């Protein structure tokens, strides 16, 4: 579709990117002196903003040029440069407008908080990610797969239960959190259960869909070999179901972390990223709040990537 120049012009790209990045970093440093304002609103925000926008545009040109071609840098530089430039621009803009930390912290403040609160955030992440999200994810997946196998074997169950599962999957599960926490308690277990329930339905629905996706030609082939039901399952049904299951898992992975955090808003025993966010919001420690969000985000992406990696390992050559 897009007619892009075939000649990589990385050299020019580096120039534009470097200039833009250095400019934005310089602006931020210049503006650093303008901290601790008496009130919202800068001296000359318009002027600063024009500068920031101009540098961003320059960076955009650089990003465009660096994205040409098929080399490794052409595939990695643009995304990295986008992040770096946007972070720098946010830093400069927030400083130009002298936005207080209690409202939106500058990226540098968030980085500082990330470092200063590293042990606390590490413990919180451990609770939220490992015990709530990951455990709930595993339980929900296993339950979903089990139910899927069961309902594929028992047609009655499939026809009676699955329509409800599909309906339930369009129910906002957050509404469940207060009730589960009330019934189960404030500890980690209630969050694990909530995550498991949110993972269960998509896995169940996709697994059943996948188990039915086997091509009839393949099934006929197995039939012609007089293969047993177990063999047919192992060699045809299960492999054709896997891509569907992995699609559900990839969606569910980051979602399980987010749901664990949401569930923590409804009660904790004093641990977890959701708990930390609530506590720090109360103190207007928004730098720590954003640090927690960054941690959650990085964990969510990593979880997603790991699932994708496993998928590629298990389904070689299918993607």
């Amino acid at each position, binding site marked *: 579709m897009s007619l892009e120049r075939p000649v990589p012009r990385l050299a020019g790209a580096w120039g534009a990117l470097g200039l833009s990045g250095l400019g934005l970093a310089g602006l931020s440093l210049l503006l650093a002196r303008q901290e*601790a*304002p*008496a*009130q*919202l*609103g800068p001296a000359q925000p318009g002027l600063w903003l024009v500068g920031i926008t101009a540098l961003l545009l320059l960076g955009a040109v650089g990003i465009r040029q660096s994205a040409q071609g098929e080399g490794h840098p052409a595939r990695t530089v643009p995304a990295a440069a986008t992040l770096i430039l946007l972070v720098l621009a946010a830093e400069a803009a927030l400083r130009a407008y002298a936005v*207080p*930390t*209690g*409202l939106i912290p500058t990226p540098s403040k968030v980085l500082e908080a990330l470092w200063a*609160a590293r*042990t*606390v955030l590490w413990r919180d992440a451990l609770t939220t990610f490992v015990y709530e999200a990951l455990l709930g994810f595993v339980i929900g997946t296993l339950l979903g797969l089990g139910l899927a196998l069961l309902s594929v074997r028992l047609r009655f169950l499939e026809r009676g239960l699955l329509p409800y599962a599909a309906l339930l999957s369009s129910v906002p599960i957050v509404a469940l959190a*207060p009730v589960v*926490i*009330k019934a189960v*308690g*404030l500890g980690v277990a209630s969050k694990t259960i909530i995550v498991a329930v949110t993972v269960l339905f998509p896995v169940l629905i996709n697994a059943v869909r996948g188990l039915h996706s086997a091509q009839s030609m393949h099934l006929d082939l197995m039939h012609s070999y007089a293969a047993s039901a177990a063999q047919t399952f192992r060699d045809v049904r299960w492999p054709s179901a896997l891509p569907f299951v992995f699609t559900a898992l990839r969606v569910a992975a980051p979602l399980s972390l987010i749901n664990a955090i949401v569930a923590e*808003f*409804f*009660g*904790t*025993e*004093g*641990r977890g990223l959701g*708990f930390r966010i*609530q*506590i720090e*919001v*109360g*103190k*207007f*420690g*928004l730098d720590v709040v954003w640090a927690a969000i960054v941690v959650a985000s990085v964990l969510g992406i990593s979880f997603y990537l790991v699932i994708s990696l496993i998928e590629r390992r298990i389904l070689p050559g299918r993607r």
Partner: protein
Amino acid sequence: MRKFALLSALLAAAALPTVQAQTKLTPIRLQLKWFPQAQFAGFFVAQAKGYFKAEGLDVTLLPIGDQSPIQTVATGAADFGTTWITDLLTARQQGLPVVHIAQIFQKSGFTLVSLKASNIAKPADFKGKRVGVWPSGNEYPAIALLKKYNLTTSLDSTVASPSVQAVTYPFDPSIVFPDKVDLVSAMTYNEVDQIAGLGYSLDKLRIFRASDYGINLLEDLMFTSQKTLDDKDFKGSGLSGKEIAARLVRASLKGWNYAVKNQAEAVNIVLPLCGNTCKGSGTRADAKAHQTWQMAEVAKLYNAGATLQGKAGYLDPAAYKSNVALLKGVGLLKADPAAGAVDYSVWEAATKK
């Protein structure tokens, strides 16, 4: 002829604003700290009785859930707000230019409640117990109280083995009490009655009022942003922000004075305004009864301290100083707030005192 008519119409339109400046009401958004309930009776009364209008103000009262009103005011989404002093001072520490202008409640209504059967007789007994607190900035009275008795909580991330296990939950005491915690947070005017509604009549409860133990962290106060106070012509009203603030405080205090004197009437004004939050819980799930309780309790918080000396709305400097000391003690404040944190001139202009 036509041309002339048009011209005169234009002239009239141009003249209008100056003529209307006296009669046109200035729109004001006042951010309450919670959903509508008798906790804010004074403001609702001022609204219903036309006290705001008499001051030339057209006030919209905004409700909020468990967030801080500070942010809505600091960003200009609201012009004025009510909040707790802890909230205001921590916000200022983080660079949010908000200013205290009037103190409505002169006494803290924060309590920790336990069952008498659990044999917790004094704060020292809290050691090793489980305490339920509300996150998002409402946990500090509890922390300060515990701190006073050298107890540490799991809310403090620097403490390796806390002597009290704190749990967080979203306000509803029935989620945790009494099976999941030994002590539960409760405001005298709200949750105490809710707990009673769960089937624990007051004689079965032991109520530790923070104020009884010298932890009198002030609650509902009125504040605004520095920007509003510095405004020379607030929203084109021709009046300065300070003058508007003074009028708002004057009308609000008038409302409050009326509400605490005529509690039944105030409750009747509040009832149609609050939705599902009006009702208590359990056996006391009756909106009117619960709001009547609330009004009576709130009146006690209003009629205390400076109010008793005829200075309703005044922030007693001694109380303020002890509040700051408390918050520094629990590590929430790193230093004394700048002098600009409290602006007494608004209250003085409002009360002519």
